[in-house]
């Protein structure tokens, strides 16, 4: 046994120890990753399970008798007169007609008044407006009988999706026994069908779950983000380029730097208050408008963009600047020709992440009046609008059953957008990343 052998022995032991340390570290790392994946799966899974059915809806197909006597007895073809016709009665009469015909075949008698009253609830309350819209679009239909497919009441939809417990006592159920037996009957007769819920993507908000859609909120979010991007990106890039490349390094720039970092951590509601005080009260921008909302979001994303842009600029090796300046490029040229193109992917990534944050923001918009029940889809940046997360918040507050799956479906759409934006950020980073 020599000295060298002892030393070798010691070394071997140390190496074994180092390996086991590494193994343990990797194990913990994997454990952490698995836990995260499990939590995420549970979260996403529960949202998808609840929301997926929101993308389909139930429709009822039936004949409507567009009685000329009730709509336009004097053949004026005047839209004003037609629009103020008794659409509710026209709709109800047609519905009663259809139901009585079926009942006559089945039971050989007409429905009682009470039965009629409860069965008309299976149809959407908006049916009369939709029928009116169909006629207003094509006045030649007056006097004819047309076959329409309209959304069923939200309760029918929920029942068919298995969300209404039939074992409950009749009084505690949103649907009574007659209604349920008629639903089954109408399904057998192909009157009731399950289709893709196009209302969700083509309509604004509504008090009726079967009518409510997210288009209004989507457009609101789109306009607000557009404003946010158009303002915060150029400002953020210019500010960061100036601070990194041109500003002298002194007390003042240090203070500015600290303040920008602080701003990034300020709760978003504070930006909302600021926006309320400045944009609404001083500049008198229209309340609830994506213009005002977008400006607040721009204030909020600005620090994020500045911070990530500065990091991207810092990551450009100084040797590139030296090379450019050494060739006689001016500071400006070295920035625009070399530093900016190299930092751009990082800046874009930061911007997209900032925008994604803004997309999910509700609190500051609350102060700007963008968390509100708005039926009309906004057509411009000054129309009153709400945004996706605000819509989700509003729907989640609705007692009606039908809004529950709507809420989850809207969350899925929002997550889809966030995912797309983040994927875009990754794509940009990989595509434009350069090696040196």
């Amino acid at each position: 046994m020599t000295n060298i052998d002892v030393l070798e022995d010691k070394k071997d032991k140390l190496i074994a120890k180092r390996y086991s340390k590494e193994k343990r570290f990797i194990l913990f790392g994997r454990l952490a990753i698995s836990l995260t994946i499990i939590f995420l799966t549970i979260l996403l899974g529960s949202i998808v399970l609840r929301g997926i059915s929101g993308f389909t809806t139930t429709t009822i197909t039936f004949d409507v008798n567009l009685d000329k006597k009730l709509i336009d007895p004097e053949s004026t073809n005047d839209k004003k007169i037609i629009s103020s016709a008794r659409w509710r009665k026209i709709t109800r009469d047609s519905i009663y007609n259809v139901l009585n015909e079926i009942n006559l075949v089945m039971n050989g008698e007409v429905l009682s008044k009470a039965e009629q009253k409860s069965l008309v609830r299976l149809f959407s309350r908006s049916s009369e407006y939709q029928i009116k819209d169909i006629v207003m679009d094509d006045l030649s239909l007056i006097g004819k009988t047309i076959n329409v497919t309209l959304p069923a009441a939200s309760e029918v939809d929920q029942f068919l999706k298995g969300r209404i417990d039939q074992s409950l006592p009749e009084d505690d159920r949103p649907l009574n026994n007659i209604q349920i037996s008629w639903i089954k009957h109408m399904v057998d007769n192909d009157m009731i069908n399950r289709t893709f819920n196009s209302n969700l993507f083509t309509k604004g908000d509504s008090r009726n779950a079967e009518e409510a859609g997210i288009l209004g909120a989507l457009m609101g979010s789109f306009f607000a983000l557009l404003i946010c991007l158009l303002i915060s990106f150029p400002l953020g890039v210019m500010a960061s380029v100036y601070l990194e490349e041109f500003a002298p390094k002194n007390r003042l720039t240090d203070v500015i730097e600290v303040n920008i970092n602080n701003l990034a951590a300020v709760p978003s509601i504070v930006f909302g208050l600021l926006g309320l005080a400045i944009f609404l009260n001083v500049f008198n921008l229209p309340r609830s408008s994506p213009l005002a909302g977008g400006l607040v979001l721009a204030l909020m994303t600005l620090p994020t963009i500045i911070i990530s842009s500065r990091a991207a600029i810092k990551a450009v090796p100084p040797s590139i600047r030296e090379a450019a300046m050494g060739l006689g490029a001016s500071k400006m040229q070295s920035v625009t020709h070399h530093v900016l193109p190299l930092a751009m992917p990082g800046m874009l990534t930061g911007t997209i992440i900032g925008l994604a944050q803004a997309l999910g923001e509700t609190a500051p918009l609350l102060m700007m009046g963008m968390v509100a029940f708005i039926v009309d889809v906004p057509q411009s940046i000054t129309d009153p609008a709400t945004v996706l997360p605000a819509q989700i918040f509003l729907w989640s507050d609705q007692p009606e059953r039908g809004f529950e799956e709507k809420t989850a479906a809207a969350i899925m759409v929002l997550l889809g957008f966030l995912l797309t934006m983040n994927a875009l950020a990754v794509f940009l980073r990989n595509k434009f990343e350069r090696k040196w």
Partner: protein
Amino acid sequence: MIKEQTKLDIDNVDVFYGKKQAIFNVDLEIKKNQVTAFIGPSGCGKSTLLRCFNRMNDLIDICKVSGSILLDSVNILDKKLDLVRLRTKVGMVFQKPNPFPKSIYDNVAYGPKIHGLCEDISELDEVVEKSLKSAGLWNEVKDRLNEPGTGISGGQQQRLCIARAIATNPDVILMDEPCSALDPIATARVEELMQELKKNYTIIVVTHNMQQAARVSEKTAFFHLGHLIEFGNTEEIFTSPNEIKTQDYITGRFG
């Protein structure tokens, strides 16, 4: 012997990095159309002094330079001096190759482009080809001028940087260890290039290679710890130095 014209007159130059002094009171005259070699152990301030000649030290916030450096009798340390003009006159090849992450062609064409040296594309093509040929890189890259300049070998990158520096047609070329990443063949080519270039340009080269200094330069300056220890004709420095430190360094006894 032809009369030697002074290109750069360095007088009483001190350089500080913050509180730390890197160059102490250096006086030096660089002659026109000659190669001057800076030698000395690592960290003695060769690069620092070299970077004074095109005011590259301005990019380092903590770096302060004092004294005077006359280029064709204009003080280039003057605060009001136009740096863009200075740097078109004084080109530089950096110690570490730093090509732009752009195509090989664009790397060389960048200088002529921003200074508007070429009238049209064909003229620019010519300049690029001439510069790459002078740097001995043309044959290796002529078929892939559009590939990124960062995608070639380290030695090729170094020669690309040389081509880029001479494309702007400067008066003085500063070379900071231009051959540190090159094989003997490429080194020989760069040395040849220096001999060729000095007919029209003034060259200052930093090198750790004693043979190279002896081969290519007319004058040699030896630095130690920020001080200029000895400056003179290369032949004399290498055969009969006045200072013991110089003697020790060139014979490899320290450094």
